[in-house]
């Protein structure tokens, strides 16, 4: 009678659910076996082109460094040929499987993953890099460019065939003040009926306040307070720095309660 729903864990979820409601974000949500949604942020053609250029430069440097080898007739030429084979076909594969990204991508904070967010494995990396030949057609990744522009997740043909994504890796440095437990502002209860979105915005305001100019801080705080109906005892909402302090008080109340 009731369709037995699948159990929470232990079941293979559909790999890579399509991006959800808000397609105007670049985030692609992906559910892990633990049942949480991980956001992957696919990287667009511009930054990838730049990464490609850097990788090209690195390869060029290797070639330049190898030219003295040509002095050793056959052996040197053989070495150069083998190296160029390795550079042409294996360079991206080795780096992607080993460290998750080629040096060029790494410099720009990119990373290659399967479309379910797991680190890219040897088969997928092989597929996407062998098919590079096709993406390269007819001239400097013309096919790849058109494909990345047209695809929702900026994938080129090789990515489509291999089921991989190039994504922005997360900032390792970003450790917001949220964990520092710095708040010693006296908590002030916000007005009743505050929506969760607004509550979250207040928290975000508190976190990002340091990045804003003082004038803008005041402006934002006043915008918020102006939207609340006036208090029952006829008291008006404060303005200026007092408004910022009041909103900080709300944030404090929202984080730790009374």
């Amino acid at each position, binding site marked *: 009678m*009731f369709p037995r729903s699948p*159990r929470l864990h232990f079941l293979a979820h559909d790999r890579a659910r399509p991006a959800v409601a808000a397609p105007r974000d670049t985030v692609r949500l992906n559910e892990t076996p633990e049942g949480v*949604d991980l956001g992957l942020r696919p990287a667009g053609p511009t930054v990838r082109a730049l990464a490609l250029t850097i990788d090209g430069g690195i390869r060029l440097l290797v070639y330049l460094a190898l030219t003295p080898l040509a002095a050793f007739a056959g052996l040197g030429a053989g070495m150069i040929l083998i190296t160029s084979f390795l550079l042409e076909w294996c360079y991206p594969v080795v780096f992607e499987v080993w460290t998750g990204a080629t040096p060029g991508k790494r410099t720009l904070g990119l990373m290659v993953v399967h479309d379910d967010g797991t680190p890219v494995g040897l088969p997928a990396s092989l597929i996407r890099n062998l098919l590079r030949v096709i993406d390269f057609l007819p001239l400097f990744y013309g096919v790849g460019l058109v494909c990345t522009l047209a695809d929702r997740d900026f994938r080129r043909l090789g990515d489509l065939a291999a089921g991989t994504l190039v994504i922005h890796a997360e900032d390792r440095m970003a450790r917001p003040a949220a964990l520092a437990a710095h708040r010693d502002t006296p908590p002030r209860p916000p007005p009743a009926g505050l929506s969760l979105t607004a509550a979250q915005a207040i928290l975000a305001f508190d976190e990002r306040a340091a990045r804003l100019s003082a004038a803008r801080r005041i402006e934002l705080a006043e915008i918020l307070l102006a939207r609340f109906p006036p208090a029952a005892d006829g008291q008006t909402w404060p303005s200026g720095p007092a408004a910022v302090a009041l909103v900080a008080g709300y944030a404090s109340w929202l984080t730790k309660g009374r």
Partner: protein
Amino acid sequence: MSESDTGLDEAVARAAAHLQALEAAVGRALVGQRQVLRESVVALAAAGHCLLEGVPGVGKTLLVRGLAQALGGRFARIQFTPDLMPSDVTGHALFDMKTEEFRIRRGPIFCNLLLGDEINRAPAKTQAALLEAMQEQQVTIEGQPLPLPAPFLVYATQNPIEQEGTYPLPQAQLDRFLLKIFIDYPGEQEELDLVRQVTNGQIGDQLDTSRVSRVLNTQDITAVQVVAARLRMDDSVLHYAVRLIRAARDWQGIDTGPGPRAGIALVRAARGHALAEGKAFVTPDDVKAMAPAVLRHRIKLTADLEIEGYRPDDVLGDLLAAVPAPRS
């Protein structure tokens, strides 16, 4: 200690025999559904009310009528409809022209076993009247408090599929039910037995509880409930129950966890279960066996999981497997 132990042992043996007889008696009418039967009997032993959920035709009403038949005592049934008024449940005062004074007319609620059919079809006010009575064990009519008879048990049913025109019970009201029993379709063999049994010499399709014999009276029920409440429960088992409840509050996928009343309910239900199993003490097995029935209506899943069609039992299964059992 040992003296009271032996006394208790005897009482337990007697009570367990009662419960098993009850189960056997009702089982003659309700084929299959052993789990449901066991849980209903546990609710009886733990003196708690039950919410039965299942699609039409799986035997909700049959179960309760069978119980009533086996128990003796007064049985009443209220079909909840959108136009049912609170006074239709509790009763009302009417003016007697002859004696020129108010006379209290007691509603169907004054009974030992009440079957509230499709409780979610009545508006909130009527539901509240019933649920108040369940909580207080008394009804107030015209300012006059009237106590309900001593074993007072409510078995309410609701239909999970037809949601149109229903008034879902609020979370706080649901808390008043000790257990939410989920009745599924019977297995193949059981369904075969059921069809065979029902169509054998049966005219029409009214419920047949004729082969259920009376095995208990109201005094017996009260005695069983007393024994259940006195059943021995070790601290480690108590801790286990509380640990389960606390884990459920912080569990991923559960939006609103169970309240403190859930812990009390779980312990009561575990006692009832131990008694129904014929044990003189409660083991973690009892707690674990009753946890889904006690918790499934007390938690609310997060919106994500609900949209994806998970049900509380799925999440509870994970939780029960993950919370360590006392074993040392």
